[in-house]
Every structure is written in structure tokens, then in C-alpha cells.
């Protein structure tokens, strides 16, 4: 495994109950130093993936590695992970200062001053019970605690889902400011891409327990095009396309969101236009494609 890999999964699967797969056939690789968005609708398996990565869950199938170590058996890797769970659970009767003490007692590698400085900068009272702070402040406390571990990878599970727009903005700003000074890898999940779009340079799209798309944002944008041209009936008529992600047709016109082949698209005839795609379009197209596939598969099963 190359040393520039922060998180790597291979055929990873987690099942609840007998047949309820929360995550399956998940194979992906997150290079170090990236800020990755983990996007997908609710219930797609985002939390499951993060819990597997931090060792809270053990997989039924496949493997997950953080810097080459298995988090479910090798607890030493916890030192390298800063994790903020969904809804930022903290002991509500503890003050932020006490939580910092807790961190110091439970971590070998811990930077109390860093955490306290951050809280002071954000004007968060360090002597008031966490349960009495606002949601935004609580999220900031959780982030400060995660950063105080000086982690090599930061895993954040829907850190801003329950925050108001201003608090979201502030949270993302703090996060970006903190990791820009280091080479910390960040993986944060959200069911809304818009929250993460500006911040991230790596994207993982999960849907219905499967990875729909993953890769470097720039590469993904480069490799996808929207093609608009005369109505086609045969998709094979377009060369240089590796995958038709989304196709829609009117009587006279076809609109195709395609993934191009590695060689790139050859020159198209004049009646075709090739447009760049936005990240949001791309994600929506893959999610729509995923749900079509799933719906089709369900129909096929039902028809048998």
C-alpha cells in the first residue's frame, strides 16, 4: 500500500441483521492531504463507512485500512484519527475545559493549548456546561477536541447538518483554516453537496450502500461532459464515451451526461455541443442513475 494513502477500503461490507446491507462492495482509496466530501442521501451508508473507518464497527466483508492499519483490531490507529460523530455527542454536563482535560487523560498525543486557544478565539465560554451551548458552539467544541489530537486524518460525520447557515459557514471556515496549516486528510460527510462543494477537492458519492462515484474533483469534472445534439437512438453512435451517466431525449434533441474514455472525446460533428458539467450536476446525475439501476433491479426481481 502506498504511503500516500490515508484511507483505503476493499470490498468493504457491513450488514445489520441478516440481509440489511448498510454498505457493500465498497472499494475506494483516499490519498493523503485531500479534503474529501462523502456525499449521499440519508441512509446511503455514510455513517457506516465512517464508523468502519474509525473502528466503531467491524466489517462483515472486505477490509478497511487507515494509513495501512486495521482500525477494528489495531487501536493504536485511534491516535491518528480525529473523529466527530453525527450530532456531535459530548458529555453535556462537562464544560469545554473539562472535555479538554478528558482528552488529555485519554490521549497520548494531545495539544490542550491548541484546543483552548481555538475555543477562546471563537468566544466559547470554557466554563459553561456543553449542554447549555448553542448547536454551532457545540460543533466547534467537538471540532476543537478532534483537532487537539493533532490527527493525520479527520473524519467528520454530518458535522453541519443540524446547524443554521451562519454556523455552517463559520464551522467550515474554522475547519479549512485549521487543516490548511497542516497536511491533515479530511473526510466529511453530508447529504447536501452544496455545503462542501467549495471546500473539497475529492469526492465520494454513496448511494444505497454502494459507491457510485469517487475521485479527484478536478479529474471528475474533466472526465465528464454534457453533450447536446440531435436526437439519437443508438448510444454507440457517439465515440470516445466510457459511460452514459444520464440520457434524456426530446423529439429532436438528446442531452447526454457522459464519462469520457481515458483518451478523451474525439472531435464531434458540428451539430453537437460539448459542455462542462458542474459538480452538483454530476452528483445528481450519478444519484439518479443509481436509483434507476436499483429500481430496475427491483422490478426485475419482482418480475421473476
Amino acid at each position, binding site marked *: 500500500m502506498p504511503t500516500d494513502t490515508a484511507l483505503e477500503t476493499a470490498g468493504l461490507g457491513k450488514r445489520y441483521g441478516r440481509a440489511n446491507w448498510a454498505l457493500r462492495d465498497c472499494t475506494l482509496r483516499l490519498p493523503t492531504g485531500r479534503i474529501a466530501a462523502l456525499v449521499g442521501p440519508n441512509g446511503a451508508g455514510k455513517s457506516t463507512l465512517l464508523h468502519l473507518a474509525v473502528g*466503531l464497527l467491524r466489517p462483515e466483508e472486505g477490509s478497511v485500512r487507515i494509513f495501512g492499519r486495521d482500525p477494528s483490531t489495531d487501536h493504536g490507529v485511534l491516535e491518528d484519527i480525529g473523529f466527530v460523530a*453525527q450530532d456531535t455527542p459530548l458529555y453535556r454536563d462537562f464544560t469545554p475545559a473539562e472535555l479538554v*482535560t*478528558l482528552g488529555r487523560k485519554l490521549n497520548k498525543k494531545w495539544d490542550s493549548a491548541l484546543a483552548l486557544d481555538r475555543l477562546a478565539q471563537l468566544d466559547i465560554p470554557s466554563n459553561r456546561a456543553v449542554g447549555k451551548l448553542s448547536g454551532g458552539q457545540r460543533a466547534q467544541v*467537538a471540532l476543537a477536541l478532534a483537532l487537539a489530537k493533532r490527527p493525520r486524518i479527520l473524519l467528520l460525520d454530518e458535522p453541519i447538518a443540524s446547524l443554521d447557515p451562519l454556523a455552517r459557514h463559520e464551522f467550515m471556515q474554522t475547519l479549512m483554516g485549521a487543516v490548511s496549516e497542516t497536511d491533515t486528510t479530511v473526510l466529511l460527510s453530508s447529504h447536501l453537496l452544496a455545503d462542501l462543494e467549495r471546500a473539497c477537492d475529492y469526492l465520494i458519492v454513496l448511494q444505497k450502500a454502494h459507491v457510485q462515484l469517487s475521485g479527484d474533483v478536478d479529474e471528475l469534472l474533466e472526465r465528464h461532459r454534457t453533450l447536446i445534439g440531435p436526437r439519437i437512438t443508438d448510444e454507440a453512435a457517439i465515440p470516445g464515451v466510457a459511460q452514459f451517466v444520464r440520457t434524456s431525449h426530446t423529439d429532436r434533441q438528446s442531452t447526454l451526461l457522459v464519462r469520457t474514455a481515458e483518451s478523451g472525446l474525439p472531435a464531434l460533428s458540428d451539430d453537437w455541443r460539448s459542455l462542462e458539467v458542474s459538480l452538483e450536476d454530476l452528483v445528481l446525475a450519478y444519484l439518479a442513475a443509481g436509483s434507476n439501476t436499483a429500481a430496475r433491479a427491483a422490478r426485475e426481481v419482482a418480475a421473476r
Partner: protein
Amino acid sequence: MIWLTWRQHRKQFLYTLLAIAVVAAVMLPTGLSMRHTFVNSGLAACIAKLGGTQAVLTENCQQLSENFGNQYNSLTFVGILFVILPVFVGIFYGAPLVAREIEHGTHRFVWTQGISRTRWALGKFGIIGVAVAIIAVAYALGVSWWFEPLVTNGGGRMGYVSFDVQGVVPIAYTLFAVALGIFIGTLSRRVLPAMGISLAAFIAIRVGIEWGARQKYMSPELAKVPIDSQAGFSQFAGDWVYGSGVDYADGKPMVGVNAIHCSANGNVSGSFTSSAVNRGDGCGSSALNGAYDWQLYQPASRFWDFQYIESGIFLALTAILVWLALNRIRRLS
């Protein structure tokens, strides 16, 4: 871990100390007055003179004992309270230990710090276990002291309620209750159901072992006293009596008779329904010749044997529950 455990449980510890103080405030004066009366009335000396012998003339102490009993026997109901105290301590410390973390989601915070959750669990179990054990030792010593006159005066400390609140078994019960609460909490993942189920399970297991197993720890002894010996079985011997009766010389039971002996004047005295003995059977009659009182019992001297056996059972169960809880914790997320 010590700091964290103290920080998380300091309120509980404080309330426990408060509760102990309240109980002590009741126990200390009643205990002192009971011991005072016990000694000053001469009952203590009277019973001491019998020296735990089984078959003796007990008339001397009978009246003193009744007087003492009239004054203080109503306090034995407090013993019932003492029986249930360990389970409450266990449930309030044990059930929330893991269940509250999961209910609030904080396990995802604390289990992703720099130490493994197994270490977290062992640290917590250990510290809470030691703290609870200290509380239980104080409780056991206090109750043993308080109960001494009452159990010496009647029944002995092998009897059902009094055995359960003295010696070392309360410590084992308390630790068992804590472990039970922890384990059920890892299953239910919610504090209130964990408390309720732990309470029910604790009662079921305690009652099951008390009535199902305790009598069989050691085989009982059989004692016989001829009815013309003028002595009966002493209630002050402190034995745990399984059963008693009167048999004819040939071993056939005398129906309706519990304990009799021949008085100096030749009459039959003791506890019997009149029809059973008064068939013209005087004390010297051939029918009663060689008849004897018997009792099946565990000698008072086996008190500590029984304490250790029962404690051993509950400590073994505690160890199993801790092991199961650790296994469960590895699977929670």
C-alpha cells in the same frame, strides 16, 4: 480513567454517601439502644452461658428473650430493607454505565479517543467495582453490627434474611448487581429498561439460588434428643433448622407433634396437638419409651462456609457477566 470516572460519577457517589449517612443516622441510635438492652437485661449473658449448645434447658433465657423480642422484633422488617439495598446500588451504578453512553451517543466520542474501548471498559469497571466494593464492605460491617442482638436472640445468623445482610455475601451481591446492570445495559442500550430488567433478573437469580441451591451447599446434620432428657433444642444455638419432629423408638414419626419432652413431674410438655399424644400415653408409657426429638439442621458453625460458598457463586457470576459485557462492548457502535 480515574479522573473521567470520578467526574462522571461524582454526583452518584455523593448521593450514595448521603444515603449511607441517612441509614447510619437511623441504625446508630437503634443499634446502640438494642445492644444496651441486650446486655443490661442479662439476655446476652444468659445466651452466652448456653454456649451454643443444642440440647439444653432454655427456660432461663426464655422470658428475657420474649421481653427483648417484644421491644425490638419489629425492627427486623428493617432487615428486609437491607436485603434490597445492594441491588439498588448495583442498578444505579451498573445499568447506566454503558447504556447511558449509548443513549446519548457519547460512546462514539469516548471510544474514539486515544485508548481502546476495552481499556475504557476495564478502567470503568475496575474503578466503579472498587468503589462499590468499599461501600458494600461498610454496609456489611454496619449491618452485621446492628443485627447482632436480633439474630442472637432468635433464629441465628444462618436464617434467610439475616444470612443475606451479614458477612461477605452482601459484597458479592452488590458486585454481582453492578455487573448485571452493566451487561443488561449493553443489551438494552437504554438506561431505564436496563434498570428494570436488571432488577427483575437480580431478584430471580437471588431467589433462585437462595431457595433452590443454598440448602444443598453442605449436607445437613441430624440431631436426636430423647424426650425424657428434659432438654429441648435451643433456639439460641444459631443453627439453620431445615425441619424437626418427634419419632417413636422405631423411627415412625409421631404425627402432629413438633417437639416434646418429659417434665420432672412426668407429664408431657412441649408443642403438640392434644390428640396426638394424649391417648393415655403418659411419659412413662411403653409407647413413648425411647421416643426422641430430632432436627435436621446446618450447624451455626458453618456460617462462614456458607458465606464463602454463596459469595463464590455470585463472584463467579459477576466474572461471567463482566466477560460477556466486554464482548458486547466490542460489538457496539
